[in-house]
């Protein structure tokens, strides 16, 4: 069966379910907005934010809300044990992983569409001045974070304390992605914009994505077979 078609089938199914329930989108969006607002009240004094605070808070909001989305995306497959039906289906198992990953990335992209302008507004951060670079950092950072998260969420789907274990395992591994995202974004938001530094962090993120996605594709089948 066509690999790309299978990836899209899984993603489309996840998006269709999400369009019906709106459960993950609303919870992650609410969480991300709350996160940005709380930090805005703490770090903005007389209309001026602490240096680099906007970049850090943007990525904290993405990481925290992403963890929430990852947990729920696989909880759905666990509730009716549909993951077993997918595992027994004759699809290439890496296609299942990529389908779930794409679904999570698209959901996080929808969250970012709201929180990027919100961070820009609350912290007076010129996130749209170098729009393409910001978009590149967000896209590669989100893919890197979700690539590791999708694998761990699938591995932990049968673990009793999966809600606790997911962030405990996920954050240490994705620290390089989050640091690269924060530093790359900060380079674009400082008074003296450093485009070459932002490009360097962007290329680091592309490298992390390649490593994480390759490792996840390689390990997904063995870790899902008990």
């Amino acid at each position: 069966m066509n690999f790309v078609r299978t990836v899209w089938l899984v993603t489309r199914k996840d998006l269709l379910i999400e369009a019906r329930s709106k459960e993950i989108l609303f919870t992650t969006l609410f969480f991300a907005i709350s996160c940005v607002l709380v930090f805005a009240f703490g770090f903005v004094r007389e209309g001026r934010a602490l240096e680099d605070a906007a970049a850090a808070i943007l990525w904290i909001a993405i990481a925290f809300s992403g963890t929430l989305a990852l947990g729920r995306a696989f909880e759905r497959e666990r509730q009716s044990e549909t993951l077993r039906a997918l595992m027994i289906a004759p699809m290439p198992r890496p296609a299942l992983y990529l389908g779930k990953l794409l679904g999570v990335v698209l959901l996080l992209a929808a969250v970012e569409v709201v929180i990027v302008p919100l961070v820009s507004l609350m912290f007076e951060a010129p996130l749209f001045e170098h729009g393409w670079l910001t978009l590149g950092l967000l896209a590669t950072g989100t893919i890197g974070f979700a690539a590791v998260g999708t694998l761990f969420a699938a591995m932990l789907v049968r673990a009793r304390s999966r809600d606790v274990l997911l962030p405990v395992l996920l954050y240490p591994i994705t620290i390089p992605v989050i640091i690269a995202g924060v530093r790359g974004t900060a380079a674009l938001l400082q008074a003296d914009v450093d485009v070459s530094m932002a490009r360097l962090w962007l290329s680091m993120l592309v490298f992390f994505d390649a490593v994480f996605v390759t490792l996840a594709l390689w390990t997904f089948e063995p870790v899902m077979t008990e």
Partner: protein
Amino acid sequence: MLDFTSLTLTDVTRNFGRRRALHRVSLRAAAGEIIALLGPNGAGKSTLLSIVATLLVPTSGTVRYGDHDAAHAGAPLRARLGLLGHDLYIYPELSPAENLRFFAKVYGLDGVERRISAALEHAGLSHRRDDPVSGFSRGMRQRLALERALLHAPRLVLLDEPFTGLDDTATHALRQRLAMLRETGSIVLVTTHDVETIEGVIDRAVMLHNGALAELPAGTGSLRDRYRAVIARGAESSAR
């Protein structure tokens, strides 16, 4: 297309940590045979079905599908397996038609809409084809889940408690469906506690007790009586 006409388990053992779920289970089934897998709760029936469905790897022993094994045959072998689990494996947010369409496409079937209509007809759900499954009763979900498992006309059909939640009409329809599967040359392994319901449909029954498999002896009594006799003997030997 990969195909096979027999299923052979040889000395299959499965441990979960220090707990032994299955101990040297051997079984052979041929095309057109329906075998009931009986046993008390926790006997290892679902574990055995999961191993045959390629979802679990045995700690030792082999499972062969004709001349093939799960490790080498992979996706083409899985395309010939149909599994109905106790948890039904359907998405409650989607409608019956959407559930069946998704799985039909995942299996790469042709004539998807024709198959969906036939499956919904079998399940008696044609009039609810576009309603979300979350509003269905357990029996309706069970009927849909069975059709999902049989949508791709699998050679090996694994049914875990398929009579759960079914009313008399649906139970009768499932018995007829099992007979139809025999005629079409499927190998059917069915676990159930509804011993009376499957009597007359199955070709033979085997019993799992404490992870070990035993053939249920042929006799004059009903299947339920013979099953109880084996359980009682097992309890007596455990007491000694």
